[in-house]
């Protein structure tokens, strides 16, 4: 389905305005599938699953991909700009304020930010806890996760090296299962 570029941009700006706390893909689903009916549910789910193999923020990638489907290259660029612009403007404003006023250790702002950081780590941990039963359902999965954590998190190996090592090993371990018919039920990591 092709959508006029102005409408498309507005839809993605709306998503960019309300996508707090890493719920971007759910907001895209609301805006594009449920409210506007621009895309079938199945098509949406298949494409978002696919966008996960790309590097970078999953939510932004998904937006660019869906935008291009709905409005060509211009649609893709506008969709990306749409989801980034509201948050980027606010982030710039907050950053300027931080470097101008808030960088004093022991200040109120610093303490509030420590609280936010602690809560945000809680968000990542909670997401991991929810995904763990599905994501770590086999010994090979636990082994892969542990291997990545030890080399990258504890031993501080460069990410490139870690990926070059564990991605091929992981693909080999899952090669057999990958023969099953598309689409498989998959966990929905946070983007």
């Amino acid at each position, binding site marked *: 389905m092709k959508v006029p570029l102005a409408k498309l941009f507005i839809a993605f700006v709306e998503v960019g305005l309300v996508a707090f706390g890493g719920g971007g893909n759910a907001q895209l689903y609301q805006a594009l599938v449920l409210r506007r009916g621009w895309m079938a549910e199945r098509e949406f789910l298949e494409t978002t699953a696919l966008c996960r*193999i790309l590097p*970078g923020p999953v939510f*932004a990638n*998904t937006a660019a991909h869906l935008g291009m489907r709905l409005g060509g290259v211009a649609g*893709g660029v506008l969709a990306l700009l749409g989801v980034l612009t509201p948050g980027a403007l606010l982030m710039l404003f907050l950053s300027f304020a931080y470097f101008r006023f808030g960088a004093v250790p*022991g200040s109120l702002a610093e303490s*509030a930010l420590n609280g936010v950081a602690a*809560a945000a780590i*809680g968000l990542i941990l909670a997401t991991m806890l929810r995904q763990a039963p599905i994501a770590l359902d086999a010994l090979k999965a636990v082994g892969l996760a542990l291997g990545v*954590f030890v080399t990258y998190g504890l031993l501080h190996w460069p990410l490139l090296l870690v990926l070059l090592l564990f991605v091929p090993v992981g693909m080999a371990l899952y090669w057999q299962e990958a023969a099953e018919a598309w689409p498989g039920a998959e966990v929905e990591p946070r983007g």
Partner: protein
Amino acid sequence: MAEALEVFLAFLRFGVLSFGGGMANLPEMARVIISNGWVTGQQFADGFALGQFVPGPNMLAVLFYGLSAAGMPGALAALLGMFMPGAVGAMWLVKGWAWMARARWSRALRKALVPISMGLSASMVLVLIQLGVDGLGWFALMAAATWLIYRGVNVVWVIGGGAALGLLAALLVQ
């Protein structure tokens, strides 16, 4: 301008390498930009925290890091470097997706990325704790937030509550 280019190249590298979610490369990003002198450890954690206040991808925190490194051009350079590789790939995928969905290697890759992302997330939590959580109180707050979000309490409230408790803690200490 040379500085902004340096920032762009650094974040382009983070952008290209961040498989398994945009924040997967946070530990390496922290190591590199702190050792480059672009931010201090505390500033890195603060920038990450500010990123929670804005809608959109959490990685908008790169604007903060870019701004600290090289001013406004640096902020834009960091944003472009971080988001461009994935977005270009995602747009290219519109052409190749039917083929890609059927390809066995792409399914194997997606299955493998799930546990690998878990390992990357665990590394990310570790580095964030090292940089931003000093003291038992913050640790307790982190545990409480984990539990609340796990039980389904709205993320926005929990993050806001963290800010309020942080403020309160500072007021009580003074």
